[in-house]
């Protein structure tokens, strides 16, 4: 077949230069908005009408911005891992871009650290943190007033009484047995054994300090008026120490995975030694479970726990589906922009667009499937603990929002747009679809986080915080600008495609 491309012609790769002004603008804009955000958040401690503080409202804005850009980079990690794990050949030329998007996870997570460390932020976002802190304070107060010693004294006194009562009973019982007829004697000895077992229960009660403390804590947590049964049951998972520690683990896992893969991939660019390629393939399969676990639990900790009483087992998959879909949309847009300014022109063909468009279509359907399944299971089961999430998002303003943005905008429109095969080879068309999907994803993440803001901050008093949308915009621009800057910088640090990958030939000449 005529016109086959030879990978040897592409050995030196293409290096991204320029973007200097844009980089400067993005960083300048991002930092400017970040400063505005910090100033507003730092001075927003005063209580507004309705009982919320501006800093609290802004915590949600920051979480929204961080999670949106986090999903993009998570998708980048996923596509890189999937590419290696499935031993794909078609996408070698776009794989470096997946890696570039994936490595942004480092910067986004660093920007997200304030959420985990600043007390104003985390107490506004995650209600369980202040609630649990208050309960723990009560428990500590009980400890300080000597509740442990008191309880121990009570138990010991109880044990003493029980022992003496038993002794008396035993003496009487033995005396009775001596007099009784054989049948009655047996009944009496049974009675004695039963009493002895009851006594053992009392005397063998654990009186160690740890056990007594636990008992007191349980009493406080299960108090009918001020206690919290959920927090008692979930204390092993939802407590600040474990929660912060888990964040460190997620950070190490997600950043470590993508940086290792990209490191080997760039090494391969230099010497073309296939061992780097094999290393990536081998490790990608091992990384996959860690990646999936880290992301699933990260969204449990950050998003599902926005309402600690609510749970959905679909949650991790739901966020994952959105991430993969939108990372692919971003990938298509980035590749197209690079081609428009003169890079990758000989490398990427409409065939690659068709393949990426298919994945975009597949994940549009996957997202719709997961989103609907999550809703459907909760809707028809109609259990109070679960329906809260959707009730809140179907009330007032959010009802139309859910229908228009998610059902129509996020699923039906992209579904119909991407259904046509030829359209996926048309650059303008597929880029329009990708941009549309990205915009809808912003609305999706907004829908996940922001409806919690009003009710959480005002104790159910307000559905939405007036004017808070501007904080969301500022946070989005701040994180977006910094994200864009680092992305452009990242583009320049290596060739735009893995130029000495052993299977570059296969990818260059891919035909559907």
């Amino acid at each position, binding site marked *: *077949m005529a016109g086959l491309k030879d990978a040897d012609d592409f050995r030196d790769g293409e290096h991204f230069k320029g973007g200097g002004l844009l980089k400067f603008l993005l960083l300048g804009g991002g930092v400017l908005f970040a400063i505005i955000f910090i100033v507003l958040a730092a001075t927003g401690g005063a209580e507004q009408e309705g009982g919320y503080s501006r800093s609290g409202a802004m915590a949600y804005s920051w979480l929204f911005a961080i999670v949106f850009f986090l999903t993009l980079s998570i998708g980048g990690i996923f596509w890189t891992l999937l590419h290696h794990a499935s031993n794909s050949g078609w996408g070698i030329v776009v794989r470096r871009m997946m890696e570039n998007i994936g490595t942004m996870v480092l910067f986004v997570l660093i920007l997200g650290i304030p959420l985990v460390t600043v007390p104003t932020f985390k107490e506004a976002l995650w209600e369980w943190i202040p609630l649990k802190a208050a309960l723990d304070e009560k428990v500590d107060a009980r400890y300080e007033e000597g509740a442990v010693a008191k309880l121990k004294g009570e138990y010991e006194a109880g044990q003493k009484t029980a022992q003496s009562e038993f002794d008396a009973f035993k003496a009487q019982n033995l005396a009775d047995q001596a007099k009784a007829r054989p049948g009655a004697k047996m009944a009496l000895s049974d009675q004695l054994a039963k009493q002895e077992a009851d006594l053992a229960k009392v005397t063998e009660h654990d009186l160690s300090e740890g056990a007594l403390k636990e008992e007191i804590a349980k009493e406080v947590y299960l108090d009918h008026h001020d206690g919290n049964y959920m927090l008692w049951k979930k204390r092993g998972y939802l407590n600040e120490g474990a929660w912060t520690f888990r964040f460190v683990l997620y950070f190490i896992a997600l950043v470590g995975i993508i940086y290792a893969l990209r490191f080997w991939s760039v090494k391969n660019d230099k010497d073309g030694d296939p061992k780097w390629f094999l290393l990536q393939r081998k490790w990608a399969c091992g990384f996959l479970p860690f990646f999936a676990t880290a992301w699933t639990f990260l969204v449990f900790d950050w998003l599902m726990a926005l309402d600690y009483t609510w749970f959905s087992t679909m949650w991790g998959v739901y966020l994952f589906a959105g991430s993969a879909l939108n990372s692919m949309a971003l990938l298509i847009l980035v590749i197209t922009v690079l081609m428009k300014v003169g890079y990758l022109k000989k490398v990427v063909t409409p065939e690659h667009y068709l393949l990426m468009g298919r994945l975009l279509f597949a994940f549009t359907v996957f997202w719709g499937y997961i989103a609907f399944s999550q809703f*459907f299971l909760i809707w*028809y089961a109609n259990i109070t603990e679960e329906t809260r999430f959707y009730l809140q998002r179907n009330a007032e303003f959010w009802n139309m929002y859910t229908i228009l943005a998610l059902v129509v905008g996020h699923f039906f429109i992209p579904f119909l747009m991407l259904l046509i*095969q*030829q359209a996926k080879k048309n650059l303008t068309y597929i880029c329009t679809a990708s941009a549309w999907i990205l915009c809808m994803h912003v609305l999706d993440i907004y829908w996940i986080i922001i409806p919690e803001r009003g009710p959480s901050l005002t104790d159910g008093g307000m559905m939405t915080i007036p004017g808070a949308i501007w904080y969301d915009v500022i946070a989005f621009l701040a994180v977006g600008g910094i994200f864009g800057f680092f992305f452009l910088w990242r583009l320049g640090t290596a060739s735009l495609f893995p130029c000495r990958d052993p299977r570059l030939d296969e990818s260059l000449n891919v*035909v559907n």
Partner: protein
Amino acid sequence: MSENRTTPFAYIAEFGSAPELYHAAEHVRDAGFKRWDVHTPYPVHGIDKAMGLGKSWLSTCSLIGGVTGFLTALSLEFFTQVMLYPTVVQNKPTNLSTIPAFFPVMFELTILFTAFATLIGLCAFIMLPRWNHPLFNSALFNKFSDDGFILVIESRDPKFRKERTREFLEEIGAGEIELLEA
């Protein structure tokens, strides 16, 4: 195997490799033949372009099937469960808001009808349910399922001429050529 096998059915030509067949297909396409086909042991990428085939209409069949299935399920459920005999389940409304409950059936019927339409459409396009085909009488043709790259030009083609077509096939690099009579 009747006695008067005198009408030619097709020329069967064997080529040495997939690229050779690919280029031969381009020549046949440019020569303006209409009733012809290629047969290979494995799928050859881009052969549809070399043969000048347009986009298949099969996807249209699938689409029609899908839409039919979707509307069938929608109307079936809506007319029976909402309009004719409203069924209240778990105190859920019986109006347009009941629609989430209908989605699984709509989804299933869409897929089922799409699959049927695709299969039936495919069979119709390639005229599949048939007992036999004259090409099966040729030993040369049967090599396509082993190591042969076969090009067949049928005599139904308006450009088919007994001598000229053979010369043409030789010209474009065919190895063994057989005139199959039926």
